[in-house]
């Protein structure tokens, strides 16, 4: 076990170093939600729908969704970097050393978690002038949700990348999956406004629970069903995804 922590730390340090040497993608990842915040959120002031209030409350409704969107797009594409590492032989080189296979995944995923949390904090700070009210305790819980989402999204992306081993195959898949997940999560408009069948489908979407829970948390409600549901569902999915991805790292990479 100590070697797992040590190895994870080593892999994390190296991944983080490389990310900091080429931080363009971190900035690009943050640009998208900022566009939504500046160019789309103002429209919501005049929109009335079940489960959402107008005026400045529209920002309080929209920003939790933006954070989840950031988590989705920030992590679902991390597999691209891994395919480059596969091609350069880095993964093979690591696999011949006694390094823990879990560490190969966790070190990288931890880098993605740290990147996302920093992006999320920047987004929250920028949102405060737009009328978002922030309470420290609930915000901490929102960031915990972000950590789970990042681990989940990054693990899935890495596992799929290790299976497909090609950017050309990963790009359409990631794009094809990201859009419906995003639309069915209620990021833009509350799912309560959707017809019954659409609401039904949206319950199969893990991101929806994250969006609902962070809305409750930003509103200052910590002990709601949505928060519990999100915690349980995301925790279970994350554990499963991490185990799946670590197994892919342990298997042959030829």
């Amino acid at each position: 076990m100590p070697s797992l922590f040590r190895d994870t730390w080593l892999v994390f340090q190296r991944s983080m170093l490389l990310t900091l040497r080429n931080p363009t993608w971190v900035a690009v990842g943050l640009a998208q939600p900022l566009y939504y915040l500046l160019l789309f959120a103002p429209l919501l002031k005049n929109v009335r729908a079940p489960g959402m209030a107008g005026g400045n409350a529209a920002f309080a409704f929209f920003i939790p969704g933006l954070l989840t969107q950031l988590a989705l797009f920030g992590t679902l594409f991390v597999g691209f970097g891994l395919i480059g590492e596969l091609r350069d032989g880095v993964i093979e080189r690591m696999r011949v050393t006694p390094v823990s296979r879990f560490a190969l995944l966790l070190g990288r995923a931890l880098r993605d978690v740290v990147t996302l949390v920093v992006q999320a904090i920047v987004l929250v700070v920028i949102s405060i002038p737009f009328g978002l009210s922030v309470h420290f305790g609930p915000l901490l819980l929102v960031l915990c949700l972000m950590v789970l989402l990042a681990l989940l999204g990054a693990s899935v992306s890495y596992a799929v990348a290790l299976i497909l081993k090609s950017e050309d195959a990963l790009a359409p898949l990631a794009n094809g999956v990201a859009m419906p997940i995003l639309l069915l999560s209620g990021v833009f408009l509350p799912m309560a406004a959707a017809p019954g069948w659409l609401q039904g489908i949206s319950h199969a979407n893990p991101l929806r629970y994250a969006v609902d829970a962070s809305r409750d948390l930003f509103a200052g409600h910590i002990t709601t069903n949505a928060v519990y549901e999100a915690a349980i569902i995301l925790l279970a999915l994350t554990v499963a995804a991490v185990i799946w991805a670590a197994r892919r790292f342990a298997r042959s990479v030829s």
Partner: protein
Amino acid sequence: MIIETTALRKSFRSRKGTVEAVRGVDLAVAEGQVFGFLGPNGAGKTTTLRMLATLLAPDGGSAVVAGADLRREPGEVRRRIGYVGQNGGTWREATAREELVLQARLYGVSKADALRRAARSIEAFQLDTFADRKTVTYSGGQKRRVDIALGLVHDPLLVFLDEPTTGLDPASRSHVWDEVRRLRGEGMTVFLTTHYLDEADALCDQIAIMDGGLIVAEGTADELKQQVEGDVITLGFGPDGAEAVVAAEKLLATEPYARRAERADTDLRLYVAGGATAMPQLMRVLDGNDLTVESVELHRPSLDDVFLARTGRSLRD
């Protein structure tokens, strides 16, 4: 023996069906040797190497590598061996020194020790002029030296080098050869694959020739060459000799002194019992049939002739 394998096998399933890449390899490699796997692309050299380095699980057979059982204690094997893949494995944005330090730390050594080891490798492999630049800026030869240094930073008992000189210019190639000789001088066992005849000939104490997933011959370079008895006469018919070479093959193959004839382009290779006595006789046959030879060469069998004798094909093709 630092490596001993019994009936090691591996097949791959693809859409086109099952490919038996390695079909039962028995090996015994003594400590302190440079052991070479010689064979064409697709012979199963890399697959065997990857199995021995714990990167691929064998389908059958057993192996003991550096004193640890390959299938039961792969972690122990990893601790004792080094492995340098065909294309190396460095991050483009990291420097050689950073890579060496990380690599040493992955084997469990402290940060201070890792820094010391990295400095030592940089000196031993003469990386000092570029060790603190990003690897993306390296030449092919520089990168290969870093790759090899990475595989050795933890002082393994045994190192696997997969095609260590493929794609290198002649100067870098001889540099790698020097490194391999230095390692052997330090008592390390080096297991390498190559498809270059001269590399196997010049570098390896022991050679196993592989083809179609099997070892078809094994021994020192001299032992292998002695397996091909007699001499080899190569007749060159020049660029316009396409017809002549066919005619010559037909005529000479039935001569009593000819053991075997092989055609490669407009060259004819004739395996004979005694070159000195066969030469004048075959020249008479060719003259009598108005066949003009441009060049004649008499030589001792090479490793390629061994390969040809065992497989019916030339490695040069």
